[in-house]
């Protein structure tokens, strides 16, 4: 595996943020391809990075960061993991609480089939081995929003293990290429979410909302194959896209449907791993990257100043942009794990092990779920590159913005314009306007049909590309006009009358003999000046290519 590590190791340009002083962003996760199988079998013990992106300055040690993630994704299901209560975001407090969710004595868990299917589906999408037998355990801790005093999880034998998540890191703006990378998925386990505590410090009260208590979670545990904030952020973003494509989680971080804890340590390559800290509850991808990079930096400074790293839980302070020790009961806990006696082992089947005559309502067939897997983001991007000849980087951008791919595909459906032209317009002009006003695709004032019509006008040379931009600007004002209407109102059509255009050219040449002379003397730039003058005379309604052709003809005659 040395060769590919070395090969990718140099491409560190974009990680200025992640590459900390005196150290570098080591590529612990290897690229996909021939090496991935070998990587999978290896333990999470540190692999020695072979190359660093930045050469350390003389006398300085090299530092390598080791980052592992635990990601909690709320399962998108109608009801909770072990009860029939509804799952809904922002319902009135404690309105979605069954007797079981409230842990009334004597209530028992009943496993939700949908949640199991979601876990299997996610496991398959992440190339996991699906365990045909998995077990549930109780994890004990006292907290006000955990009414049973324990969480039911899968500690001993989770539903899926040994997978991989492939993601892409941009190699830099200029080349448009994306470097594929891989992080191993240790396991996926089903578990219950807790309720929410709302602390009212003024009245020294804690209010409990149990709506979330018992909602099904997929805990996806990533091996510590990541080495900086950007890698972590990109991997999580890819996981988010996969979950959304599968429909197994809405994975909306702002609504807490996707929550990330990061385990971070630093060490000198070749030496044992350092003491790690856990940064909890990172609830946006941007903060995830920031928190990890901050924490790597902090650990290195701490160690270089002779300090030591405590094995502790930290949280990310969003305003200050730093991590702070939580120093509370979240510290060292003995969870006193115990098998959940009220749930028999969860048994799954495949086509070969399915008992004959089994009631399909009573069994889950892994193969059947495999057949229903939708197209995954990596395949979608591959298809975009193949089908439309776009750059890989562009395919990433199309998928990364919520709704942008759909927008693009809708424009494609209605326009005669070339895919490259459409890609360029969607990614540069359209996305640029959105970003500028901080709008989501769904909030866009320009519909796919309007853009398609506009691109058709451009394609048929009815308008010039600068006129097209002007039309787009008008469309953005939400005045309800079609591109066609705007073009005719503003008289933006290109002049189609060749005779009239020849007349304009003739007049300009006549009025600017000096420039004509320059052209004739062999100054190649002089003709551009003439073209500009003609365009101005036509109020920008003439196609410069046509003007040039006419001028050249007239000049040579």
């Amino acid at each position, binding site marked *: 595996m040395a060769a590919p590590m070395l090969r990718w190791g140099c491409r560190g340009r974009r990680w200025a943020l992640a590459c900390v002083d005196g150290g570098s962003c080591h590529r612990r996760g290897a690229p996909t391809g021939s090496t991935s199988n070998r990587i999978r079998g290896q333990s999470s013990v540190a692999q020695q990075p072979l190359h660093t992106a930045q050469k350390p300055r003389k006398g300085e040690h090299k530092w390598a960061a080791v980052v592992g993630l635990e990601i909690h994704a709320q399962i998108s299901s109608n009801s909770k993991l072990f009860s029939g209560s509804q799952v809904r975001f922002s319902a009135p407090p404690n309105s979605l609480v069954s007797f079981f969710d409230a842990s009334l*004595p004597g209530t028992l868990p*009943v496993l939700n089939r949908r949640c199991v299917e979601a876990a299997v589906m996610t496991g398959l999408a992440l190339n996991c081995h699906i365990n045909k037998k998995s077990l549930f355990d109780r994890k*004990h801790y006292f907290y*006000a929003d955990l009414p*049973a*005093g324990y969480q039911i999880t899968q500690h001993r034998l989770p539903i899926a293990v040994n997978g991989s998540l492939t993601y892409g890191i941009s190699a830099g703006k200029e080349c448009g290429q994306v470097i594929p990378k891989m992080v191993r998925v240790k396991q996926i386990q089903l578990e219950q979410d807790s309720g929410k505590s709302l602390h009212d410090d003024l009245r020294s009260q804690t209010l*409990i909302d149990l709506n979330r208590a018992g909602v099904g979670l997929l805990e996806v545990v990533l091996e510590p194959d990541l080495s900086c904030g950007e890698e972590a952020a990109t991997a999580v973003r890819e996981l988010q896209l996969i979950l959304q494509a599968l429909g197994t989680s809405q994975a909306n971080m702002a609504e807490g449907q996707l929550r990330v804890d990061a385990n971070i340590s630093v060490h000198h390559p070749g030496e044992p791993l350092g003491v790690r800290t856990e940064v909890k509850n990172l609830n946006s991808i941007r903060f995830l990257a920031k928190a990890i990079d901050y924490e790597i930096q902090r650990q290195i400074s701490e160690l270089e100043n002779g300090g030591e790293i405590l094995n502790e839980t930290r949280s990310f302070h969003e305003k200050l942009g730093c991590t702070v020790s939580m120093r509370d009961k979240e510290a060292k806990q003995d969870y006193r794990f115990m098998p959940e006696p009220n749930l028999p082992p969860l048994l799954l089947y495949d086509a070969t092990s399915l008992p004959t005559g089994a009631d399909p309502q009573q069994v889950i067939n892994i193969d059947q779920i495999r057949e229903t897997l939708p197209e995954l983001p990596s395949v979608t991007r591959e298809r975009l590159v193949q089908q439309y000849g776009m750059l890989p980087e562009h395919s990433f951008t199309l998928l990364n913005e919520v709704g942008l791919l759909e927008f693009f595909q809708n424009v494609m459906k209605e326009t005669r314009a070339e895919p490259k032209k459409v890609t360029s317009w969607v990614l540069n002009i359209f996305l640029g306007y959105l970003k500028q006003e901080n709008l989501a695709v769904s909030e866009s004032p320009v519909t796919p049909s309007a853009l398609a019509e506009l691109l058709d006008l451009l394609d048929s040379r009815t308008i010039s590309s600068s006129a097209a931009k002007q039309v787009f600007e008008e469309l953005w004002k939400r005045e309800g006009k079609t591109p066609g209407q705007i073009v005719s109102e503003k008289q933006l059509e290109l002049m189609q009358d060749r005779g009239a255009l020849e007349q304009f050219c003739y007049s300009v040449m006549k009025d600017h003999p000096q420039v004509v002379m320059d052209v004739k003397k062999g100054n190649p730039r002089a003709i551009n000046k003439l073209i500009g003058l003609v365009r101005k005379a036509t109020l920008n309604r003439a196609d410069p290519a046509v003007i040039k052709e006419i001028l050249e003809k007239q000049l040579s005659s």
Partner: protein
Amino acid sequence: MLGQTLREVSAALKQGQITPTELCQKCLSLIKKTKFLNAYITVSEEVALKQAEESEKRYKNGQSLGDLDGIPIAVKDNFSTSGIETTCASNMLKGYVPPYNATVVQKLLDQGALLMGKTNLDEFAMGSGSTDGVFGPVKNPWSYSKQYREKRKQNPHSGSGDSDWLITGGSSGGSAAAVSAFTCYAALGSDTGGSTRNPAAHCGLVGFKPSYGLVSRHGLIPLVNSMDVPGILTRYVDDAAVVLGVLAGHDPKDSTTVPINKPLVLSSLEDVSKLCIGIPKEYLVPELSSEIQSLWSRAADLFESEGAKVIEVSLPHTSYSIVCYHVLCTSEVASNMARFDGLQYGHRCDIDVSTEAMYAATRREGFNDVVRGRILSGNFFLLKENYENYFVKAQKVRRLIANDFVNAFNSGVDVLLTPTTLSEAVPYLEFIKEDNRTRSAQDDIFTQAVNMAGLPAVNIPIALSNQGLPIGLQFIGRAFCDQQLLTVAKWFEKQVQFPVIQLQELVDNCSAILENEKLASVSLKQ
């Protein structure tokens, strides 16, 4: 009427010889008369009378729901009952009114049974005497039976008065006393290590523990989830079978229950010659009273003389059962009791300096020493550093114990015959000389391994001891062969003709007993 079998009463109700309301009132009046037994924590008089009224309408319209329609029953106070306080005999749950019925309770009510009340127990069913609940100990009705009193008069050593009343055994002592004193026809107990069979033995009742998974635990406030089963206490095997027929089957709310293929019907066994009865040699322990030992061998002889094959079998890991149970039980208790934090329901202390301080004080005030002791032990066993050495080992031993039974049954044995208890019921003052843990360890010795293996088992009263107190024997069946087990038990019941408790004196003189009772409780406090 009150001494009849459930089917006999049901027939009488159908024929109109008695109405459900009359029957209900008879039982209510007996409950009042025997209040000093402390069998009930809550008497649900209004509920029962209303149910009786509805039952009566059904009988009038010829729309009886079945054998249980109009039949008074009682339920141990660790089963959730909608709208009726459910305390587990603990300060922690005083005042807790569940919003739902346990599945077994609902099934009984759906059949038209009348809920007379909630019966007393050891706190959270942790005990073997029904002496360790916050509502005080349960008294064994046999303490006041003619049979026992006459024997006592003959014995010059026995004291006078009622200060040496007997315990019922436990932890379902309230349910046992309730049935034994004719205040209902059947009662639900729970059985984790013998809590139904033990008091049944001491109170001269049929005490049935079904196979684990046959009857829903939904709504049963758990002691040890992996061993708990709802138990049935009745005066006759047939009655237990009727109740089991109603309760058995898959419950979507309890994932450990299994569907049953055919309804449970108890036929009369005429011929035992095809039966093989196993006598586990490890159950012959030195502590076993000689009287019980001789009744046990007489019972074996009875089977043999009627043509059954009786063989000695070995259950070699029996002796490890109690210590193994201690680890598994306390671990699950530690976990199950974690929810009682004073936040949502039950007791909450006045301390509000912090959530942690509130938890601590609430749990200190809410639980008795026995419960707190088990929580402490259980948490110790579950600590990361101890888990392998205790919990995992105990689970392995549990498997060995379960395999012992499998091997015995594979060798051709149909049913095992063992004692249920070491001795007959002992006086309360005698009983409390030992602590709860010692007592539980002793008293569960014959019953507890069955729970480890999830097997069905039943106590059948066989005879009265020299003191005039009931003695029972236990039959253990193959997993999910509950019907076969009860069929054998029914045959045995018919052979032994166990005498009916004679309580007329008690009922007539209850006021006198109440007077004496006051004296007794005064003397206890010294």
